[in-house]
């Protein structure tokens, strides 16, 4: 079965990033596919390459980035939600004359159309808030 994940809870105001990652791992382990993980609303903060938790804390951004790399998974940040919250690629940052971007290299940026495409093409859309 093809899963599309939607994460709307933020980096430190929700457990969403952690729960969704555990869910994604279990999904792959059960032999399912993940078409895309889309980050919307405060969820876009999970794509910040500048997040620096203490050494003994769970690192949501790094954990997602590593999991995505291992499973060639698309991690997609909503462009407008990201721009509102200062999560953007180097290209976007340059467009706005803001210097370097803040987006982790394993994440990409797309519009809400990408969420709808993935949702309509997948068997299940699962939201974590």
């Amino acid at each position, binding site marked *: 079965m093809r899963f599309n994940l939607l994460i709307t809870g933020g980096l430190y105001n929700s457990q969403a990033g952690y729960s969704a990652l555990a869910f994604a791992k279990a999904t792959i382990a059960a032999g399912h596919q993940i078409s895309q993980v889309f980050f919307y609303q405060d969820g876009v903060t999970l794509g910040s390459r500048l997040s620096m938790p203490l050494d003994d804390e769970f690192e949501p951004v790094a954990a997602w980035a590593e999991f995505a790399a291992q499973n060639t998974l698309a991690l997609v940040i*909503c*462009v*407008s*939600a990201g721009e509102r919250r200062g999560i953007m690629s180097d290209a976007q940052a340059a*467009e*706005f*004359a803001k210097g370097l971007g803040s987006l982790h290299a394993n994440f990409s940026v797309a*519009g*809400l*159309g990408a969420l709808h495409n993935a949702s309509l093409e997948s068997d299940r859309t699962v939201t974590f808030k």
Partner: protein
Amino acid sequence: MSDYFIEFAGQKYPTDVQGFLKNRLSWSADLGRHMASLDHVVLTDEHWEIIHYFREYYEDYNIPPPMRMVMRVFKKAFGEENANSRYLLQLFPEGATKAASKFGGLPKPKNCK
């Protein structure tokens, strides 16, 4: 205060980095004409028809009109044969929503499409 601005008729108008006005209430038709000239566009009656429509729609709803509605207005003003997206793209090579918003003093439309 914005780092970017347009100087026109002895006044400074704050904009974003792409030249969209920060305060749509400071807009005037003359300023709009000047903004278009900075983008090498000479505004015709047809341009103005669309720009005014965008301004009125935005005043009412705080959102740019959908292209479907723009087409309807265009059709009414300039006839069925001229009202197609190709023609609109000739008028506004950057895209009607983006350019009409810009020259009309409206904020840059979201690119979440």
